[in-house]
């Protein structure tokens, strides 16, 4: 068994896997990595199952001491990582020697960086998942963000890794996975509550991501959207990436720690293939929306999955 000692936690670092599905009837949303593609690829680089738990860092990374030998990978946003004094290559497996310190700084681009370790982070599972749900204080390490002095266990990996073989993501694949600032959406379940003019304005508009955005939702600032005059609708189940228009006319995009139900009309829904991009959007970033047909959304997801499971993704 190997360990990670948290010397400094960074701004907001949590244990995440691919989330816990199936507990919506209790009001428990799935949570999980905000950029699941980055976590999945990170896990592949170190030889884990895609769904193994890793660390999700937000805007400013942490400092971690590895008392034992480990194999790790950093994916997602580039936080300018160093290992002792050397730079660490992103999107690549890296061998860490006993006593070495991995340091991450502020983001250079994107919002979230992922640290995966061979074997995966070992925390007590809550409802079958290691994911932290910050709002409700569930899952992960005691349901909270990491603190200085925390010690995380790394699960023993299957097989030996005595002979370290570097694996890295192919440049061409990486280009295709670059986060988008124009988010593609399909029409939301209440899209026809909004007039054509209002919808046009929504798609033509540029929105700024508000400071108080978090894993629960991204609040947007910009030209207010005319809300339907019918008043409040009754609560219904809401999906990940739903763009709801609040009474003030400003959109909120529901994110991984979303509420499971809500009473605001949804004009649009971010397509599944662009949810990882949503995880890399920072406060004050400007985003726009582009509507696509359902078939396109499905095709883009299939294409993304194909790339992710392809042999060309990772070079050894």
């Amino acid at each position, binding site marked *: 068994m190997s360990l990670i000692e948290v010397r400094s936690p960074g701004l907001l670092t949590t244990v995440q896997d691919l989330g816990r*599905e*199936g*507990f*919506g*009837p*209790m*009001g*428990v949303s*799935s949570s999980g990595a905000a950029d699941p593609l980055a976590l999945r690829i990170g896990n592949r680089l170190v030889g884990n199952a895609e769904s193994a738990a890793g660390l999700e860092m937000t805007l400013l990374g942490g400092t971690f001491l590895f008392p034992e030998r480990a194999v790790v990978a950093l994916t997602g946003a580039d936080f300018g990582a160093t290992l002792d004094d050397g730079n660490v290559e992103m999107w690549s497996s890296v061998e860490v020697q006993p006593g070495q310190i991995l340091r991450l700084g502020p983001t250079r681009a994107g919002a979230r960086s992922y640290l995966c370790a061979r074997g995966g982070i070992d925390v007590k599972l*809550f409802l079958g998942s290691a994911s932290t*749900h910050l*709002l*409700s*204080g*569930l899952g992960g390490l005691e349901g909270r963000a990491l603190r200085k002095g925390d010690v995380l266990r790394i699960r023993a990996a299957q097989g030996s890794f005595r002979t370290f073989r570097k694996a890295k993501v192919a440049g061409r694949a990486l280009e295709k996975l670059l986060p988008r600032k124009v988010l593609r959406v*399909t*029409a*939301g*379940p*209440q*899209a*026809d*509550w*909004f*007039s*054509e*003019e*209002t919808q046009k304005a929504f798609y033509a508009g540029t929105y700024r991501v508000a400071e108080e955005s978090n894993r629960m939702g991204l609040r947007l600032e910009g030209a207010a959207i*005319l*809300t*339907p*005059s*019918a*008043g*409040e*609708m*009754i*609560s*219904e*189940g*809401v*999906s*990940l*990436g*739903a763009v709801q228009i609040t009474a003030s006319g400003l959109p909120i995009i529901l994110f991984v720690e979303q*509420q*499971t*139900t*809500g009473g605001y009309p*949804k004009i649009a*829904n*971010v*397509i*599944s293939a662009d949810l990882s991009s949503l995880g890399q959007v920072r406060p004050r970033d400007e985003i726009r929306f582009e509507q696509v047909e*359902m078939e396109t*959304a*499905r095709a883009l*997801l*299939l294409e993304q*999955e194909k790339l992710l499971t392809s042999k060309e993704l990772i070079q050894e």
Partner: protein
Amino acid sequence: METSASGGVRFQVASDQSLLVYFDPTEKRSRVSRSAGINVATPLQNQISIEGHEQVRRLLRLLELEPVAGVRNLHPAYSSILIKFDALKLRHEELEEVLRRHITRLKKVALPKPRLVEIPVCYSEEFGPDLKDVAKLHKLALERVIELHRSTTYIVYFLGFVPGFAYLGELPEELATPRLPMPRKSVPPGSVGIAGTQTGVYPISTPGGWRLLGRTPLAMFRPERAEMSLLAIGDRVRFVPISREQFVKLENA
């Protein structure tokens, strides 16, 4: 967006990996007028109905007993269920077909007899900062507001929003109150609030726009408990007033 209806059931695509099923016994349809700048839309689900709720419970039960391959999660609400699925395994049309077959069998699905759960509440201005405003809004005495709230047996229509938050209905008409114009940034756990004709208890500290009348010392959601959530869909609930002393005693129990 793609919509289809038949026999009081309506399907609505919500996203590329989710489908909404509405049970709409009153057959109310969205009426959209595109002549005005803003659409005049009649919300489809503008009425909470027990029939719709029971259909939701039956379908939920059936989907739990006979899970559909590719379905990942269910988000029930008053008279609808959002079904999240894996688009790599299922298409909206395929899921709809399976659900239509399920729905023809709903009548045969037995629902357990509802439990009656009593929730002690300390109604006070200390714990219910909106008590006074609600009374003023309806031109009622404080005591009358409390009396109205406590004297109703509520149905747990569903759990949603956050873990363990039960949507209870319906409030007596006289007490129906709109949400706060600006939601609070943080509502203390145990707070008992009202919004529209709904009432509910905040299980954890969250932002919230419901008007607060009091607080319960009971834990609504506890992950270490076998039954994590104090309330389950279909339960009946009554609020029992307690004093501040009793509140403190129960809180420390």
